[in-house]
């Protein structure tokens, strides 16, 4: 369970999930752009952010459909070459959302699919982080989800730290919050 204050967890829960209302709800017309009155009718198809869809699902008010990033097409692409699939544009919190959605839709294959995708891409992320020239990186980085980007940064920064340690040099630094001072002379 992520922390209450975890920014990533909060932003992740903003991902839209398409749901079907099993009951009607009054006074929330804003949720359904097609609604004529200020309410959502029974059977209306509405895109809800995960935080709302999840809670309403627990109360059996909505039925959740599988988000497009876990459909058969994506699975086929991942099977073909996991490292080349653009997961960021599909869902930048692919793994986190997958973990949270799986129990809702009761699809047991999602877990193993996530694991397969992650292990396939992890190797590529690490080897790119250590080997690719810095100019090459941006193109590759656009494919990664948030978590993978973090791994990539971690690998890079540990490599720089190692190099810095080997060379030696100043270990004290100006606090990063301060702006770089322009030379005044």
């Amino acid at each position, binding site marked *: 369970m992520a922390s*209450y*204050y*975890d*920014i*990533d967890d*909060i*932003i992740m829960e*903003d991902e839209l999930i398409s749901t079907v209302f099993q*009951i*009607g*709800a*009054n*006074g*929330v017309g*804003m*949720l359904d752009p097609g609604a004529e009155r200020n*309410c959502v009718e029974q059977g209306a198809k509405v895109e809800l*952010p995960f*935080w*709302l869809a999840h*809670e*309403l699902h627990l*109360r059996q*008010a909505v039925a959740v459909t599988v988000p497009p990033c876990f459909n058969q097409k994506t699975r086929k692409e991942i099977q073909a070459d996991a490292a080349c699939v653009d997961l960021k544009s599909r869902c930048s919190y692919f793994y986190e959302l997958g973990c949270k959605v799986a129990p809702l839709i009761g699809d047991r294959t999602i877990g193993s699919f996530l694991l397969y995708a992650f292990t396939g891409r992890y190797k590529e992320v690490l080897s790119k982080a250590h080997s690719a020239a810095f100019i090459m990186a941006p193109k590759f980085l656009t494919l990664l989800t948030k978590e993978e980007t973090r791994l990539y940064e971690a690998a890079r920064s540990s490599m720089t730290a190692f190099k810095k340690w080997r060379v*030696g*040099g*100043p*270990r*004290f*630094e*100006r*606090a*990063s*919050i*301060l*702006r770089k*001072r322009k030379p005044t002379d």
Partner: protein
Amino acid sequence: MYGRRASQLLKDLSTNEPGQLSSFDTDAFDQVIKECDAHHIELQGMMRKIQEEGLDIQTTRNADHYGAVIHHLALIRNKRCLMAYVYNRAEVIQSLRWKVGAVLPQEVQQKVNYSEEEYFKNHSAALESYMSEMEVDLTVDMVPPKDPYIKVRVLDDIGDVFLSDQSPNLARHSIHFLKRTDAELFISQGLMEELPS
């Protein structure tokens, strides 16, 4: 969509580099609070309606109930976003005490709001009273020391200062051999740089 503005607030926060601070977004913050009030009014209205229809509020599961639930959830969501916004900024502000000393630099001061400034002062005072009780300065030696003295170059005119073992004139571009613990705060404030010895 409900909660959109609140999560935008956090998205803005997450685009900052770790440990950096941007200005407190008072406008968006107040708007989210207004949204919360609106949800609250809607919520109360629906609860009243259920009661007026003579239904039991505990067990009724009609359209009004679910409308109220949605407003309630949106309110809680907004609250979580606001709390996380304040909390994560407070973490950064707290860490500043350890990095730049007891006084907030000018450029940071513009970015924090009144209560954040108070928080910084109080945290600073708490730390100070603890350190004076324990008779140890906890904010030095953030990097494991190799040598008690280091060579530094002064980057800005600091003038005459009293340090623990000497009172050098720290003129710009002069090079000194100082006790690490004395030099550490000057370096993190960007007034000196460490030279390879």
